[in-house]
């Protein structure tokens, strides 16, 4: 992070279903500037886990236990979950 980007925050990100296979982990922590959007976080995660790129359009994103759009601005303490389309039943 560059000094002029303002304060940074650590965001915990959980992966579910085959996203764990794509990333090789169940969770990670990403340091991002304040006010980063979910979409920007995803772009940063693609650099770390390139296999996520193919899933960008279909990925569902939640903060806590609620779905959020890609424009959602992250706050300190937010916990993000990323996963493929759901398949219950």
């Amino acid at each position, binding site marked *: 992070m560059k000094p002029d980007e303002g304060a940074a925050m650590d965001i915990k990100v*959980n992966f*579910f*279903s*085959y996203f764990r296979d794509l990333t090789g982990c169940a969770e990670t922590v990403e340091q991002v500037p304040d006010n980063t959007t979910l979409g920007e976080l995803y772009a940063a995660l693609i650099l770390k886990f390139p296999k996520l790129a193919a899933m960008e359009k279909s990925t569902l994103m*939640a903060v806590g236990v*609620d779905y959020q759009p890609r424009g959602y601005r992250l706050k300190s303490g937010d916990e993000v979950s990323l996963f493929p389309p*759901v398949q*219950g*039943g």
Partner: protein
Amino acid sequence: MKRELIITNEPIDEAKLIAARTMSSGMGAALYFVGVVRGQEGDNTISAIDYEAFQKMVEHQFALLFDQMEKRWPIESVRLVHRIGIVKVNEPSLWVEIVSPHRGEAFAACQWLIDEMKRVVPIWKKPVVGDAA
């Protein structure tokens, strides 16, 4: 509206669930649906499905769906059981019951609930090929 949600690793005991049904005198419809694991997943023959859930979010999303159901239909109770972990072919993975005054709202609400579950409730399935024991 009474609500009961069970996410479990244990087999779904339909007889026990049916025996536990309660209905007030104004109710005329008790509808239940059982979703069963099929032996085919696409072109593949499978022995089971391994279900995974994001439990906390599952509970929250079902609560939101039940809130919407309650506003939309005059339902007295909804009970839903979803199994997670390994569920073998021919075994139930989902059990839903709706109790309402008339059959129309019970059928409509049940169909809607399952459709919405498949859209927003974070449960995933992984087909198991070969021995599922």
